[in-house]
């Protein structure tokens, strides 16, 4: 009897014990490794806002922009200065995996961070200005065959980045050498959009979440979404690349990693916070408002995906000659 009571008492005390042992964030920070206005920025601001609003974290998480080297500065900063910081989340996207695969983050790669989880996925789009000569993706493919270097492509990120890769994959489907593309990197999607609207560039291989304002105003058109099937909502009228005979998909998974030696208690805490965010009834609407689609993967399963994808992109980078095969 006494023993049973003890067990009951212990069981009752368990939630409290777990909390006491566990971790409470203090002055937590979300690093968006780009200038404000782009996808990383949205990832941080949307997630931190929802976590506060839904009371999933005890105090608001502030967003810090850390532009430079499309994320290289942030991963170096974390590894050099805050490798054990339990209070920092760093936004990443599929593009970060590309950069790691291509060794653009110096000596740091997929095994030098702790993969916490995804918040959603976005899809690549191929945008042109309202009055572009290209009406469909087929027009673009034909245009590439006529002269791929006559089509200036402007986006955020360097050669080899995911925006570059989207067009490179279409170029390969058109039987062209991606290295002959005329690609102009801008710092941030806002500047690249301005260049498209100004007619300085002809293609904007952006993400579905960043083009809504200009699309609804009729300033730009979308030739294709790079998704497995048509996307819902305002994008349902845009055909996929596959429908138009070009087998290219580009999902942009967005989420967070933590520092390489983030304590287990903090790691589990953040994984759990994301899991509870995904399960919250208010989340799908907020996520959809930012043009993101469901992608609820966290923790160990997600870390495995991150490592698998990075390896796949490493193979791709070798194929197009972005990195030396021996290394």
């Amino acid at each position, binding site marked *: 009897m006494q023993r049973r009571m003890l067990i009951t008492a212990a069981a009752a005390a368990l939630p409290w014990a777990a909390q006491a042992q566990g971790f409470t964030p203090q002055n937590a920070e979300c690093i968006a490794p780009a200038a404000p206005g782009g996808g990383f920025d949205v990832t941080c*601001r949307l997630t931190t806002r929802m976590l506060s609003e839904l009371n999933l974290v005890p105090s608001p998480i502030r967003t810090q922009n850390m532009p430079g080297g499309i994320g290289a500065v942030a991963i170096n900063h974390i590894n050099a200065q805050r490798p054990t910081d339990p209070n920092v989340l760093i936004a990443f996207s599929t593009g970060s995996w590309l950069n790691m695969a291509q060794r653009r983050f110096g000596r740091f790669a997929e095994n030098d961070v702790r993969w916490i989880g995804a918040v959603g996925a976005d899809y690549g789009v191929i945008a042109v200005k309202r009055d572009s000569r290209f009406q469909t993706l087929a027009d673009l493919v034909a245009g590439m065959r006529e002269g791929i270097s006559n089509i200036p492509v402007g986006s955020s990120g360097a050669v080899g980045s995911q925006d570059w890769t989207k067009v490179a994959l279409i170029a390969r489907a058109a039987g062209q050498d991606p290295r002959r593309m005329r690609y102009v990197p801008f710092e941030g999607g806002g500047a690249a959009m301005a260049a498209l609207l*100004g007619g300085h560039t002809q293609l904007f291989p952006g993400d579905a979440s960043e083009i809504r304002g200009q699309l609804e105003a009729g300033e730009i058109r979308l030739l294709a979404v790079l998704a497995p099937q048509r996307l819902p909502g305002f994008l349902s009228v845009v055909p996929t690349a596959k429908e138009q005979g070009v087998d290219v998909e580009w999902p942009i998974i967005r989420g967070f990693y933590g520092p390489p030696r983030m304590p287990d208690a903090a790691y589990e805490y953040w994984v759990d916070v994301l899991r509870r965010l995904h399960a919250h009834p208010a989340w799908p609407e907020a996520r959809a408002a930012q043009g993101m689609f469901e992608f609820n993967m966290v923790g160990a399963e997600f870390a495995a995906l991150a490592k698998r994808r990075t390896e796949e992109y490493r193979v791709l980078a070798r194929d197009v000659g972005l990195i030396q095969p021996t290394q």
Partner: protein
Amino acid sequence: MDVFAALGGGFGVALQPGNLLLAFIGCILGTAIGVLPGIGPLNAIALLLPFCLALRLPPESALILLAAVYYGSGYGGRITAILLNMPGEPSAVLTTLDGHPLAKQGRGSAALAISGIGSFVGATLSVIAMTFLSVPLAKLAVAFSPADYVALIAFALSLLGAVSDGPAVKAWAAGCLGLLLAMVGVDSGTGVERFTLGSLELLGGIDFTVLAIGLFAIGEILLLIETRLRSEAAKLGGGKKLSLREVIFCTPAMLRATGIGFVIGVLPGAGASVASALSYTAEKRLNGAQGKFGQGDLRGVAAPETADNAAQIGNLVPMLSLGIPGSGTTAVLLGALLMYNITPGPLLFEQRPDVAWGLIASMYIGNAMLLLLNLPLVGVFARLLTVPAWVLYPGVLALSFAGVYAASNSAFDLLLAIGFGVMGWLFRKMAIPLVPIVLGFVLGRMLEDNLRRAMSLSDGDAWALLGSPICLILWAMTAAALLWPLLRPRRV
């Protein structure tokens, strides 16, 4: 839609008591943030945003508050620049050139007053231009190609020699040093590390705040220690108050600076520093002969301060009418809209006129508030100088260090600031001007990024740099600016 009706609707929003109060709070916060070296409006807005959401402010109110912090900061940066020779924000660097000499002559209050009036004129005329011309202006913003930016920045750089008195060769050398410092860090195009000496702290490049605080604040204090706080400090009284005649005398300069500042501000990526530098040098070139620029000319204070505020408002044009952020701070403002599930873009004025026009109307009110707030306080600000130097300067230094550390959380940056401080002190002794270093630094990065873009767009054809009428005009102006000192009869 009728602009007046829409603006009337906007005033309906902006004049609600809650929104008036928020605009007022924003103005005060903005001024304070401008005064504090190291803390810029970007960080302040990013920090305030969660509060707006937590207080469940409606989107137009949040935007009114955040924007007031943004344009209010343009009023604050001049105070320490004029009184202490320590610019509180990047665009106030030019204000030190004539503002501090005025303060030394005991006319600190007059300099503060004219800069407040200039800020008001620049901001208000720009808001009027924005009200009626935002659509054609937005077209100008996107029409500017990378090659045009290259020419614009080259023009700004060509004026470096005119910024300071003394041998032009020293100014050029200082400007080149600034260009070199801008190279440090990870190259944004390729991810290659440059001049980082293997240091991870330098990967992100040198922060502007670190450079400015080091060169100006720490360098000034080192010099004061050397002269035992005796000779150089500014005087509180003794000078004449600002007269109406002087305001009228400065008016043409303020109008020119408004035009320069607003147009530069509309261009995404150019910004207030370029605007204040161009307007100062323009005034000096136009009126240098009869003026006493560099020794305390009121126009030398009025021009950069007017241009600074005009550019800040100009920056909001592409943001509101195209949904394209022109600077880091406006990008955070756009982010605020996103958080309220408002899609920024060309349809903002139609979909949410309450937000767009409410904001514009609030800027008329906010700038009037700032003028009324700033003019009577001129005397209070000037009283800063009655604080004993041995309290004042260490206090400013502590605030500066706090600002540097808050921005980067890096002790390395503090050491770097001290290093620049020693450099600034030595350069002062050698009469090497500091302003060109800072301008070279700011312009260097923009020049490189845009040159690369222009070259990729043209497939490496350098003739593309002369490819548009805007380019040709700007290059012609650059050539004229460079040749002018050679053609001008030498004054000894």
